C-alpha cells in the first residue's frame, strides 16, 4: 500500500510560482539600457572607451568574486550588479583615464562602498557615484582632463574643456554668451567633452525611456531630477536654451536615469522619490551655479542617498496617514 503513493513531495508555502524576472534579469535589463550610450561612447571617443569599460567591468566583477571567496560568502557575481557598477564607473570617468586609477575606483566601489556594508541591497550610497567622487578627490587632474571627441572637427589639441567648464568660465567672466557653448543638436548627439558615458544625451534618453517602459524604474526620480535642473537652469540663465543646456550636459541624464534610481539607495515610496529627485536637481544646480566645481551631479546624488532614510520616514508618515492600505480609497 505504502509504495503506491508518492509520500515525499516538496511542501512549501504558497505561491508556488514566481516571476521569471529575477535580480539578474533586472540588472541585465539595465545593462541593455546602457548599451546605446556605450556604443555612442565608443563611436565618440574611440577604442579607448571600449577598453576602459572592459577593464572596469572585469575589475569590478573580479573584486566582487574575490571578496566573496575570501569572506566565504555566497557568490553574487552572477546577479550582474558588479558588472553594472563597473560599467557605470567607466561611464563616469574621462575616456583617457589611467586604467590603474580606474581599477582603484572599482576596488573602492565594490569592496568599501558595497561589500563592507553587507553587499547587494545593504549599501547606503550608490557604489559607482561614490567611486566617482573618490576618484575625483584622489586624482583631480586626471578626472578633469577631457579628451576631445573624434567629431570635434580639425584641431591639434588632444584635450579640451567640457561645456560645463566653458559655462563656468563665461559665468565667472560675467559674459554668458551662449554662442560659445555647443548647440542643442551637438549636446544631444554628444559632440563635446565629458565623461565617457555621459556625453551622448540621446542614447541615455533612449536607455532611460526603455527602463521606464519596461517598468524597471519608476519615472518619478528621473522626471523630478531632470525637471528641476531644467526649471532652475531656465531661471538661472534666463533662457530656454540655458535650461536645456543644463539638463543635457554633465552627468544629469546618466545620473537621473541610471544612478539616482538605484533601488537600494533611493526612497521606497513615490513621495520620498519625488523629494529625492527634486533635491538632486537643486543640489546639482547650486553646485553648478555657485560652487567651485563646474559639475555637481555626483555630489547631489550622494547627498540625497544619505537623506534616503529620512525621506523614507517622512513618506511613511504620509502613507500611514492615508490609511496605509489603499484598497481603492
Amino acid at each position, binding site marked *: 500500500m505504502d509504495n503506491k503513493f*508518492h509520500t515525499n513531495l516538496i511542501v512549501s508555502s504558497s505561491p508556488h510560482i514566481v516571476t521569471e524576472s529575477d535580480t539578474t534579469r533586472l540588472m541585465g535589463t539595465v545593462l541593455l539600457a546602457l548599451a546605446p550610450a556605450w556604443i555612442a561612447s565608443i563611436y565618440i571617443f574611440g577604442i579607448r572607451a571600449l577598453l576602459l569599460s572592459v577593464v572596469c567591468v572585469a575589475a569590478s566583477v573580479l573584486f566582487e568574486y574575490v571578496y566573496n571567496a575570501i569572506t566565504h560568502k555566497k557568490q553574487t557575481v552572477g546577479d550582474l550588479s558588479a558588472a553594472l557598477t563597473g560599467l557605470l564607473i567607466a561611464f563616469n570617468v574621462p575616456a583617457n583615464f589611467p586604467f590603474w586609477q580606474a581599477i582603484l575606483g572599482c576596488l573602492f566601489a565594490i569592496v568599501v562602498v558595497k561589500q563592507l556594508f553587507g553587499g547587494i541591497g545593504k549599501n547606503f550610497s550608490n557604489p559607482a557615484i561614490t567611486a566617482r567622487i573618490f576618484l575625483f578627490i584622489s586624482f583631480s587632474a586626471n578626472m578633469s582632463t577631457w579628451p576631445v571627441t573624434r567629431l570635434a572637427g580639425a584641431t591639434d589639441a588632444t584635450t579640451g574643456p567640457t561645456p560645463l567648464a566653458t559655462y563656468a568660465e563665461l559665468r565667472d567672466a560675467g559674459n554668458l554668451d551662449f554662442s560659445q557653448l555647443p548647440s542643442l543638436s551637438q549636446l544631444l548627439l554628444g559632440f563635446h567633452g565629458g565623461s565617457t558615458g555621459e556625453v551622448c544625451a540621446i542614447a541615455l534618453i533612449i536607455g532611460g525611456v526603455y527602463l521606464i517602459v519596461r517598468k524597471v524604474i519608476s519615472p518619478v526620480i528621473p522626471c523630478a531630477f531632470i525637471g528641476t535642473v531644467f526649471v532652475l537652469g531656465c531661471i538661472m540663465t534666463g533662457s530656454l536654451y540655458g535650461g536645456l543646456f543644463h539638463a543635457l550636459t554633465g552627468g544629469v541624464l546618466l545620473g537621473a536615469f541610471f544612478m539616482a534610481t538605484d533601488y537600494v539607495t533611493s526612497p521606497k515610496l513615490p513621495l520620498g522619490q519625488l523629494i529625492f529627485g527634486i533635491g538632486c536637481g537643486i543640489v546639482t544646480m547650486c553646485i553648478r551655479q555657485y560652487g567651485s566645481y563646474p559639475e555637481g551631479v555626483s555630489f547631489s546624488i550622494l547627498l540625497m542617498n544619505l537623506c534616503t532614510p529620512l525621506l523614507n520616514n517622512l513618506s511613511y508618515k504620509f502613507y500611514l496617514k492615508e490609511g*496605509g492600505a489603499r484598497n481603492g480609497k
Partner: protein
Amino acid sequence: MSQRKHLPSIHVPHHKNTAASETVTMPVPDEVSISMSQNIGAPCQPLVEKGDYVKVGQRIGDVDAFVSAPIFSSVSGTVKSIDQVRGSMGGFETHIVIETDKKQEISEEVKIPEINSLEDFIKAARDSGMVGLGGASFPTHIKLNPKNLDECEYLVVNAAECEPFITTDNREMVENGQDVLDGMRLIMTWLDLKKGYIGVETNKPDAIANLKRLIEQNEIRDIEIVPLPSSYPKGAERVLIYETVGKVMDAGVLPAQLGVILDNVSTIGVMAEYFKTGMPIVRRRVTIDGDAVAEPKNVYVPIGTRIADVVEFCGGYKTEPRKIIMGGPMMGRATKSDESPTMKNTSAILCFSQEKAEVKEETACLNCQRCHTACPFGLMPSIFADAYEKKDIDTLNRFNVMQCMECGSCSYTCPARRPLAMSNKLAKMMVKEASN
C-alpha cells in the same frame, strides 16, 4: 456600471490549458477517504461507525455548531475505518474511509427540498452541504443568512477564476450556465436582492458568451455580467466587490456588512442542482493539470477520492511528481502525499516535476518595492518581512499587516525570490498571538 479605477494587480501566466476540456466523470475508486474537516469553522463528527453500509448522498458527518456544513457519502459501500490523519493544515483530521461496492446506490435521504419560506431556503442550503467551492470553503448557508439581510441589495457572483491553470468555474458556466442563473434567481428571490453581478475575467470568452446567450434567452434584466481584466487577483473577495459594486472592504469585514451577498459561481450552480435533484454535494469538478500529468483534463471526482486515483484516471504521471498542489498555484496548498483525498474545495490538482517544483533560492532584498506596487491594497510586504524578523509587532500593526489577504502577489513579483507571502502569514499569526 460606471468604469472606475482598478486596484493594482499583476500579470501571471494563465495556463488555462483545460479551458475547452469538457468535464468527464471518473469511475468510482476502490476506496475513498472523506475528511470531516471540509469547511471553515467546526469540523463534523462522524455519524457512522466502522462496518456500517452507506449509500450515495447519505449524511455521514455533521455537527451542531453555527459555522459548519454536513458531509455526505460520495459512494455506496462499507465503512472500513475511521482514522485520525495529519491534514494539510498541520493538525489532525478525522477521515472516514469507505470501501466502495461500485453500485452507487442512492440513499433514501436524497429528496428534493420543499421551500416555502426563507427559513426553509437557508435550511436547504445547509442540507446541500455547500461550502465555498472556490477554495475558502466557508459554509454557504451562513453567507446567505446575514444579520442585516434587509440592508443587502446585491448578489455578486465570483466567476473571475484568476488562479492560473484552474478552469472549473469556466466549465461550470459553459456546461451548467442555466444552473448558475437558476441558483442566482433562487438566492435573489428568497433574499430579496435587487441586482446580481457576475464578475468574469475576459479570458473566458466561452463562459461569457454562454451566460449572455442564456440571459437574453430568458429575458433576465436584473443580472449583469461584469467583465474583469484578466489579471491576478481579480477573484479575491475584497477586490471583486470593489470591481463590481465599487465598495471598499477592509479585512475582517463580511461582504454582507456592505450590503453584498457574495458566492463562487460553481457553488451557486451546484447548489441549484441540489434544489432540482435533492442530491447534496458528493462530487465536484476538478481541474487536473501540471507538467507531471499525462492527460490534463476536467474531471467529476467523488469527494474523498485520493489524488493518486484521480491522476491514474488522467493517464498517470508523465514524470516523477515532486510537488502536488490542491487548488491554484498562487494560493493553493502543497500536499505532502498523493494519498491525500479530494475535498469539497479542491478546485484543482496540479502536479509538478522537479524542475517546476523547486523553491528558488532567496537573495538579498533590492528595495525595488515591486511587492508594494503589486499588492492590491498597497501594503508594504518588505517592511512586514523585516519587522517579523525583529518581532516588531508595533510596526506590523502600524503598517496594517492584518489587511493582507495572502494572495501571494508580493512573493510572485519579488526578483529576490523572498517568500514574502509566507512572512506575511507568519507575521499575522504573531500579531494575533500578541493581541490574545
